[in-house]
């Protein structure tokens, strides 16, 4: 394996839009080869050091990976959260600016999500952006402002245990999700289990997560019937809540942070991955995808 960075991890080349064109004269200049992995050896062990990774120093622990939690805020002092890199809020002004704020959570939901991520990836860096402030519906504008900030800031992962049903935000949200994907910022979004259309979890540029009902936090399944692509623990999850409390909670919004945490483990071991590659590894290491002679097959 080469020690140099693969091309997508190096400095971006400056160029005018459209120059050079995206095509490449490969007959004259062979494309650079990158010696990473052709993924045939991808297992849970390879991906994050296996399921005993928590105590195992050779496994991934999320170190060096920056995660942004877009939610109700996070109680930075909660023992399950284990501190925040930064705490911000989308200000209630006309420009919806993102400003620093105290690490508090008046609801508890963001604290629950942050605690789940920390429980899986103990060394991860967590930042909170509060986009759900006053409980009023129609806060899609704050969600957009917070997400735009997170993408610009270059977080590796953004946890979105929320969705909007308002189609007025669809084009901008879609564009933002695509931009994040190509900037190596992976959005992990909880699926909506109501008979309504909502987003961004329905976009192909994000990882969408629904629930399974088993108690193991590291068990997750690839769902062959998207748009919900993965199923993670989402039933009776012990979670942190406001005022230092703990409750058991059920919902897809608690399944998404499990996948965010697992992604952080993988990224801390394999910093070179793009969202596309990470999603592929997540698929290959899913509990229901097993290697066999003929390639991957789904266990009965």
């Amino acid at each position: 394996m080469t020690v140099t960075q693969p091309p997508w991890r190096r400095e971006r080349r400056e160029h005018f839009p459209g120059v050079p064109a995206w095509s490449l004269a490969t007959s004259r200049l062979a494309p650079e080869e990158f010696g990473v992995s052709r993924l045939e050896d991808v297992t849970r062990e390879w991906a994050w050091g296996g399921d005993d990774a928590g105590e195992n120093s050779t496994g991934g622990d999320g170190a060096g990976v920056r995660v942004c939690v877009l939610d109700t805020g996070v109680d930075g002092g909660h023992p399950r959260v284990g501190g925040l890199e930064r705490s911000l809020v989308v200000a209630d002004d006309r420009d919806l600016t993102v400003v620093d704020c105290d690490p508090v959570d008046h609801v508890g939901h963001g604290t629950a999500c942050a605690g789940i991520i920390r429980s899986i990836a103990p060394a991860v860096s967590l930042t909170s952006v509060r986009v759900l402030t006053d409980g009023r519906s129609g806060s899609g504008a704050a969600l957009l402002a917070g997400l735009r900030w997170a993408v610009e800031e270059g977080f590796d992962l953004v946890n979105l245990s929320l969705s909007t049903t308002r189609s007025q935000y669809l084009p901008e949200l879609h564009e933002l999700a695509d931009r994040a994907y190509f900037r190596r910022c992976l959005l992990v979004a909880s699926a909506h289990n109501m008979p309504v259309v909502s987003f961004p979890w329905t976009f192909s540029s994000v990882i969408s997560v629904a629930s399974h009902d088993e108690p193991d936090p590291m068990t997750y399944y690839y769902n062959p019937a998207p748009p919900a692509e993965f199923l993670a623990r989402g039933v009776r999850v012990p979670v942190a809540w406001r005022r230092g409390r703990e409750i058991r909670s059920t919902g897809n919004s608690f399944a998404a942070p499990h996948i965010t945490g697992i992604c952080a483990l993988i990224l801390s071991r394999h910093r070179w991955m793009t969202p596309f590659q990470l999603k592929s590894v997540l698929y290959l290491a899913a509990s229901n995808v097993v290697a066999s002679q003929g390639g991957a097959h789904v266990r009965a």
Partner: protein
Amino acid sequence: MSVHERRSDSEITERRLLQSTVEVARHVFASAAASVFLVDQETGDLVFEAVSGAGERHLVGTRFPAGTGIAGWVAASGQPMIADEVGAVPQFAHDAAESTGYVPRSIMAAPVIRQESCIGVLEVLDRSADWRGDLADVDLLAMLAAQAAYGLELLLRLRRAETELPAAPGGDDVHVLLQRISARVPRDGGAADPTALKLLAVAEELLH
């Protein structure tokens, strides 16, 4: 029967629809209570519109400020959720739960969504421990929330119609209204809109 009597009569029908939804919710989950909140679109407050079980006699009309508790989060995020063992920690007996006179051990809540916006929240307190499966519970709650959405929308539509009606100048005075209608009917032999004519005929019958 006066126009006003007929209006309140129809509001009873809309209310019964919503009430029947919470009754069904309470019974399928064998729960202590089920309720529907309306999200006040101006203030974001949550207002009890229908309650079955604990608190059904006094809670309707009670308001909570926006963002209160689990129902507040569900309204803001549009995501259903279940919180269990909330009563295990004494601090949970907080403001809102206490003021309702009932402190639950578990809360299930789903958003009530119509035309892209969350207009309410369906909440079930202390469902029975019978094995249905938690994921099945969430799905069933979501389906009932979809039903509550129709009930709530009908109620809102009715209230809107009521507030808009007197806005017309002299709307309450039937003679002023008749004069306005008369001024709109073509006098040069042209035919009036057939639907409007039919409605006027119905109005004449009702005023009889």
